[in-house]
C-alpha cells in the first residue's frame, strides 16, 4: 500500500495556521531580518555568516579556499635570501605535462672552510599555460622551495607572458590594486 505522506487527519491548529496566514508572515520576518542586518552589519565579502555575502572582487581581495592552488612561487631562504632550490630536477620529473624546465651548472661552492662541487640553479622556467595545478611538483620538492600560492590572477596580455622565469617566480607579479 502507498504510505500516506500527509497526516490523515488535519488538526484544528493546521486550520488556524492556514486561516491566519502564519507561514506568510514567517517568511516576511525572515526577509526583514536579512534586510535589517544588511543595514548595520560591517561588510566583509564572502563571509557566509554575514547578511551580505557579496565580495566586490577587484576592489577588495577575493577569498579563496585554504587548499586553493594558484600561481607558483620559488621560496627563498629567510635567513640569507638565497634560493632554497638545489636544482635536483625532481619537480620537472614529477610534472605530468612537462611545464617545468630547471637549468643548472656544476660549480665549486665554498661552505665555511670546505669547497664542494655542487649543482647550482641558473634558470627556472615555469609554463603556467600548460600547468594544471596538480601540486605533484610541490610534493616532489625536497626543500619546500617550489610552492603553489593562493594568487589566482594569472591573465596576461601576451602568450609569452605565460612563461614565468626565475625572477618572476621568486618576486611574484606586480598587480594593479584597486581601491574601494
Amino acid at each position, binding site marked *: 500500500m*502507498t504510505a500516506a505522506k500527509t497526516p490523515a487527519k488535519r488538526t484544528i491548529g493546521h486550520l488556524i495556521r492556514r486561516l491566519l496566514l502564519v507561514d506568510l508572515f514567517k517568511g516576511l520576518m*525572515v526577509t526583514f531580518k536579512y534586510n535589517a542586518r544588511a543595514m548595520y552589519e560591517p561588510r566583509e565579502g564572502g563571509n557566509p555568516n554575514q547578511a551580505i555575502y557579496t565580495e566586490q572582487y577587484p576592489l577588495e581581495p577575493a577569498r579563496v579556499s585554504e587548499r586553493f592552488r594558484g600561481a607558483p612561487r620559488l621560496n627563498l631562504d629567510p635567513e640569507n635570501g638565497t634560493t632554497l632550490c638545489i636544482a635536483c630536477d625532481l619537480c620537472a620529473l614529477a610534472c605530468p605535462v612537462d611545464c617545468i624546465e630547471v637549468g643548472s651548472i656544476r660549480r665549486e661552492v665554498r661552505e665555511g672552510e670546505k669547497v664542494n662541487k655542487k649543482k647550482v640553479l641558473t634558470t627556472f622556467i615555469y609554463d603556467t599555460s600548460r600547468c594544471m595545478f596538480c601540486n605533484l611538483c610541490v610534493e616532489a620538492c625536497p626543500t619546500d622551495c617550489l610552492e603553489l600560492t593562493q594568487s589566482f590572477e594569472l591573465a596576461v596580455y601576451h602568450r609569452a607572458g605565460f612563461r614565468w622565469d626565475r625572477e618572476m617566480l621568486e618576486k611574484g607579479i606586480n598587480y594593479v590594486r584597486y581601491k574601494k
Partner: protein
Amino acid sequence: MTLLLVAPDWVLKLMHEQRPNNVFWSEYIIWPAIQIVVVLFIVLTLIAYLVYLERKVSAFIQARLGPMRVGPWGLLQPLADGIKLLLKEDIIPIKADRAVFMIAPIVSVVAALVVLAVIPWGAAWATIANVNIGLLFILAVSSVGVLGLVLAGWSSNSKYSLLGALRSSAQMVSYEIGMGLSIIGALMFARTLSMSGIVDAQKADGMWYVFLQPLGFLVYLVSALGETNRAPFDLPEAESELVAGYHTEYSGFRWALFFMAEYSGMIVTSAVAVTVFLGGWMLPGVTGTSLFGLGPISSPTLHTFASIIVFAAKIFVLIYAYMWFRWTWPRYRYDQLMELGWKWMIPAGLANIVLTGVWYVLALPKSQGGLLELMRGGPGARLVPTGKGIIYFIVTGSVVTIPIVWGLLATINRRSRDFNLHEQRQLQMQLRRERLEKMLQQPAAAQPAEGGQ
C-alpha cells in the same frame, strides 16, 4: 462645490491681485502651474529612486549588495539608467499597429500622473486641486491606465504581449472592485470624498480610520497590490511565463514610460491608503501650533513642510512594504489570483460595508433621532462621537467584524478546489487503496487451487 483657495500671498503680490475676489490668475493659473511643475519634478525623481530602492531592498533580502558602482553606493544609478533609456533605439515591430503602439505608453503614463493632482501632499497649500470628488477622480482615472496596457498588448502583435494584456486587464478590473468597496467603510466615517476633507475628518475625530476600519485597510492593501500589478500578483509581467508581459515588444523610452506608470501607480495607491486610512499628513505631535512639543510654530509654512514630510514618510513605509512583499512571496497562480479577488476581497469589502453600516446605526444616540436624521445631516455634520464612541467603533471594527467576515468567507470558500486540496488527496488515496485491495483479493478468490498466487 467648495474649492479651497490656497495660493500664498507672494503669488498674489506678484500678480497684483487682491484676496476677496480678484484672484483669477494667481489662484487658477500661476500657482497651480508652479505646483504642477514641482510635484512632477519631485515625483519623477522619486520614481527613479524608487527603482534604486527596490534594487537595494531586493539585494539586501537576497544577501547581495545591489548597485554599487555608479557614484557612492550606486546613488547615481537611476541617472545612468535614465540616460541609457533615452539613448536606446526605439524599436517598433514591423507588424505592429504603429499608431496604437506609440500611443499606448502615453495613455498609461498620463493616467498614472494625472491622479497626482488631487493627492493632498500636505496641509494648506500643498494640494494642486482640492476638489470635492477627489477619491472618485482617483479611482476613475487610474482605471484608464488599464486601457494603456490593453492597447500595448494588442498593438504589439505578439503572443506574449497579448497574453500579458489579457491577464492584466482581467486582474485590474476585478481588483478595482475590491479596492472601491474597501474604501466605502472609511467614507462612511469621513462623510466626504474630498481627499483633504478625509484627512480633516480624521483630525476632527482624533483617530486614524485604520483603527475603525481594519478590515477595509487589509482589503485595500491586497487590492492595491493586485491593482498595481505588483508581486505576488505580478502575473501580467511574469518573466517565467510571459517574457515580460504587455511590454515585451517595447524598448527604450517607451518601455521606461510603462515603468514610470507602474511606480507612479505604487505611489498613488499608497498615497490613497495613507489619506483614507492612515491619517494623511496628520501625526500625533505635528499640529498647526506645535511641532513635537518643541514650542509653538510661528509660521504656517513650517507646519506645511512638516506635514509634507509626515505624508512622505507614511507613503515610504507602505512602499517599503510593497517591496518587502514582492521579494518574499512567490507569485500566485492565475486561478488563485482570480479566486482571491472574487471570492475573498469583493465579499469581504461588501460585508465590511454592511457591518459598518450596522454598527453605525446601532451607535446612533437617541438625541440624533435615528437614521432619518442622519441622512438629513449634510456634509458638515459629524457623527463619530468621541471617547466611548471611538472605543465602540474600534471594538466593532476589529474584534467583531474581522472574525465574522473571516469565518464566513472561510466556511463558504471551503468548498473550492484549492482550499480543500488536502481532503481531496486523502479521498484519492483511499480510493486507490480500496482498488488495490480488490485487485489483490480477486485472483486469490478466482484460483484458490493454485495457492500462493
